[in-house]
Structure formats: C-alpha cells, structure tokens
C-alpha cells in the first residue's frame, strides 16, 4: 500500500499517547481491533483521572469551599468544551448522561411522556439493541407503534421505504449515524430533513460516529444526538445527550433527586433549569471532567485526516479479507467506514475470535447487540474488526497472518 506511505498524520506519534496499546497479551504484541466496543485512552485523559481524584475531588454545584468550586468550574468547562465541539447553541443543550443507552432511555422516558396513543416512532433494521428496546418499552407503555425501515443486502437503509413510513403520525425517528455491525454511514442529514417535513423529531445515535468524524449538530439539524464518552477516548460511565434547548425545556424531568430541583416542599417541587433538570443526583464528576479532556485531545487531531486514514484501513482490510476462500464480508455499503465484519463458511465466529485472541488480537465476535440484523443475514454472528485512528496497516497485515493460522487450525 504505497499510497499509505505518506499518512496524513503521524500514527506512530499518536500511538505513543496510548499506553494500553503498548503491551503484550499471551506473550504477543496487543493488536486492538475492538474500537467499536470501546476506545483506548490517551495519556492526557489518564493523567486527568489521577489528577482529579488527587487534587480536585469534591461534590459540585452546592459547596462554598475551594475544592467544590474548582470541581464545579472544571465540570462546567468540560460541558462548554463539548458544546463548542458539537457546535451546539448553548451549554444548556449538553446533558451529561451515563452513556448512549442512558441518553436514549432519557429521551424515551421524557420525550416519550409527551406522546399519545397511536403515535409512531421509526427506527431502522440495523439498530443496536439500545436503540430498539427503549422504544419497544415506550410503545408498550403508551400504546404507540414502532415502525422499522428495512435495509438492502449491502446494509443500506432503503430511503424510499423510509419515506413511505413517514406520516403525520410519526413523532420521532431514531437512527444510528454509523452501524456498529456493518460500518454503514447513514445519510442522516437528508433523513433528518425528511422527518422534519412531517413534523417529526429526530434522534441520532452517535455512539459509532463521534470518534470518527467532526459532528456539527446545527448543520445536521438533529433534535437529539447521543453518544458515550468511552468510545471517544474518555472514561466509561459518562456520555452526552445533546437536545435542542426549546425541546428540552418542554420535556418533563427524567429522574428526581438532588441537583435537578429549584425548590422542594412536600406539597410541590419546582425543577431546576437546563441542563440540571435532567441531571439528578451527584453526577459522574470525574467522568465529565475527563471527557472534557478527551475532547481537548481530539481537538488536537485533524479529523479530515482521520477519516482518510480510517477509510484506508477499512478498505485495505476488506481487500485482503476478500481473498480468503469462504469468507463473506457482511455489509457493503457505498458509504462505509472503520468496521469490517465477516463470516466464514462452516466456521463459528467464536472459534475464530478465540484463536485470534490467543495470538494477541482483540476482535469482537457474536451478534454485536444487533440480533435482528443477524436474523436478516441469516447468520449467528460475525467476526468484527473495528478500527480507530491509532491502528495501522502493519497491524492489519499481522491480523491477516493470525487469521490464516486460525483457519488452518480449524480446517
């Protein structure tokens, strides 16, 4: 791959920032291709976690003392940094959550409370379970209908079918930006405009896109955008729900407790303003601050170059894998990135994943929390290699050699 000799950014330099990548497992150099599940953390974030608990730890928002004020300032600074990165209008639109799943459940519960029996919600056939089940539960609770846009065999949402499903009854469309199983990049900007034409709101599941591209929520014009911190080089247990301010203002609170109130009496409680209305209880303070650090880190990375590099990795992996006899790549969308999912004739993904693991290669096997999608392709699961910008062509070469060895053993 001579075209990749001149990489648009220095991968070696980037890798030095990630200590987890510099280790051996089972006596082999670790090759980490499970970035769709979670990303490794740069030194900046690791240092920030240590620094927070060593120097700043205090509960936020209500303390008059030095540490509390400092932690509050840092936590709110993280919120502002994330707001700026997403190009949201106001930091009131950035709600800290536990992660993508929590954000979707918040919207399903709170926005869902404003819906009436007979209203409809649209999702697609390639959604992660966490963008299916909360809507199913809401539909059951409120008497709503869940509509599913079918996909083609390449793994692309059928846009004409989407248009047919849209109607005045549609109140919300919830779609993944990038499929965690197939790597398909969905044309969400166009899909958002179509939803708005019938007066429906649109939630983007950004769990798999935030780490691969620059997100501009105002350009997309989405009503909600959710993601997890741990997939974008930050800590686990923290995530973000972006919502348009006027919409969040109309929505009832999600959970009750401290921090989310203005005044409490036994007769009546009034709620705090945004964003605190949706942040009951002591939040994941260290998580929020360190997610801010992860955003500081990605600000230093050229994401145009990231997109080129990651597509090159996925294209190269696909090209090499296609030469294996009996190997089928699952998902062949025209617009695809960072994920290569495959199955092998007569072989179980679990066996391949286990043998790759013993050679130091971390991939994911199974249904990837997209069982309906596996049913569509009539397979029990896939082997999924998912890349981040710190992965290299050399790692793919080593992966291919390890795969070859695994297949010879299983023959």
């Amino acid at each position: 791959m001579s075209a990749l000799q001149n990489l648009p950014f220095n991968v070696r330099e980037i890798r030095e920032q990630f200590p987890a990548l510099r280790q051996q497992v089972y006596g082999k150099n670790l090759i980490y291709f499970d970035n769709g599940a979670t990303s490794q953390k740069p030194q900046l974030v690791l240092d920030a976690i240590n620094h927070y608990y060593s120097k700043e730890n205090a509960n936020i928002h209500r303390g008059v003392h030095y540490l509390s004020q400092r932690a509050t300032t840092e936590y709110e600074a993280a919120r502002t940094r994330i707001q700026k990165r997403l190009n949201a209008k106001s930091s009131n639109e950035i709600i800290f959550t536990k992660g993508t799943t929590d954000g979707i459940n918040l919207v399903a519960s709170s926005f869902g409370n404003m819906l009436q029996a007979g209203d409809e919600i649209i999702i697609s056939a390639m959604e992660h379970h966490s963008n299916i089940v909360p809507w199913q539960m809401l539909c059951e609770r409120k008497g709503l209908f869940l509509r599913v846009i079918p996909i083609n065999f390449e793994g692309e949402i059928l846009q004409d079918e989407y248009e047919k499903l849209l109607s005045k009854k549609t109140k919300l469309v919830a779609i993944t930006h990038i499929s965690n199983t197939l790597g398909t990049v969905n044309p969400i900007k166009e899909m958002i405009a179509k939803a708005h034409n019938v007066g429906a709101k649109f939630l983007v599941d950004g769990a798999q896109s935030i780490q691969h591209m620059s997100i501009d929520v105002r350009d997309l014009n989405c009503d909600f955008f959710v993601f997890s911190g741990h997939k974008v080089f930050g800590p686990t247990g923290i995530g973000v729900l972006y919502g348009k301010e006027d919409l969040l203002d109309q929505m009832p609170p999600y959970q009750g407790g401290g921090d989310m109130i203005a005044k409490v009496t036994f007769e009546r409680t009034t709620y705090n303003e945004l964003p605190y209305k949706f942040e009951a209880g002591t939040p994941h303070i260290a998580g929020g601050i360190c997610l801010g650090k992860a955003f500081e880190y990605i600000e230093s990375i050229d994401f145009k170059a990231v997109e080129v590099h990651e597509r090159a990795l996925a294209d190269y992996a696909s090209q090499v894998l296609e030469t294996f006899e009996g190997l089928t790549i699952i998902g062949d969308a025209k617009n695809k990135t960072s994920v290569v999912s495959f199955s092998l004739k007569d072989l179980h993904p679990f066996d391949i994943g286990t043998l790759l693991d013993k050679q130091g290669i971390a991939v994911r096997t199974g249904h990837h929390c997209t069982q309906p999608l596996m049913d569509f392709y009539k397979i029990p699961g896939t082997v999924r290699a998912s890349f981040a910008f710190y992965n290299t062509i050399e790692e793919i070469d080593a992966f291919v050699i390890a795969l070859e060895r695994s297949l010879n053993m299983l023959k």
Partner: protein
Amino acid sequence: METSMDINKIQEEIISEFEMFDDWMEKYEYLIELGKDLPIIAEELKTEDRLIEGCQSRVWLNAALIDGGMSFSADSDAIITKGIIGLLIRVMNHQKPEIIASNDLFFIKEIGLQEHLSPSRSNGLLGMVKRMKLEAIKSLNKK
C-alpha cells in the same frame, strides 16, 4: 455398575497432558482435535429443553443415569466449545451423581481454561457445567 476411574485422577491426567504444550496455540490445537473427535449427539436429541443458550455459542446436553453412573453426551455449534465439552465429559462420564455434584472441577483452572467458564464469556459452557451438576442432583433425588 461400570467401574469408573477416580474423578480427581482423571483431572490430574488431563493437567499433565496439558503441561506438555509450550504455548496457547498448541493447547487450542489439541482442544480443536478433541472437538472434532467428540461423538456427535443425535439430531433428535437437539431439543429446546436440552439447549443451553450462550451469547457466543450454543450447547446441547443430554444426561441419563445408567447403572448408577451419569452418562452425558453433548454438542455445540463452536468447535473449541466442543473440545472443552469433550474434557468435561471425559471427567464426569460414568461418575456417581453425588461425586459430580460435589466436585469442584479444579482441572479447568489448572489448564488455564477458566476464562471459558466465566459468566462474562457466556458461551454456554458455564451453563453446561451447572446443568451437568443439576442433572446429577436430580437423579440423586429420584433414587
């Protein structure tokens, strides 16, 4: 009743067999061979009630009490899982139910396969060990 080897002796035997392997890949090569050799369970026995659903791979287990000893046959859709099943059956087949119910199967940890029985791995094997013990206890109660 068929005389069976002491359950702990069989485990010691497996441990010393595994000591001969230099690295992980050799261990797995052996497990794959075991998996290929495992007698295939009859298709009509692959029923819902014999299925142990795992997140990664599926296991079918048939158990019966024959002449005072437990008799197991099993299958899986994944070959490495089948290999580990082969080891478990080798240890537990023909043993008395009370012995199966109380044995801690120490060989699994000794040969480094405990990860396959961790709840997070969820490949049906942990469920299978539990089911083997449960079937043994059930047959004890029937006596």
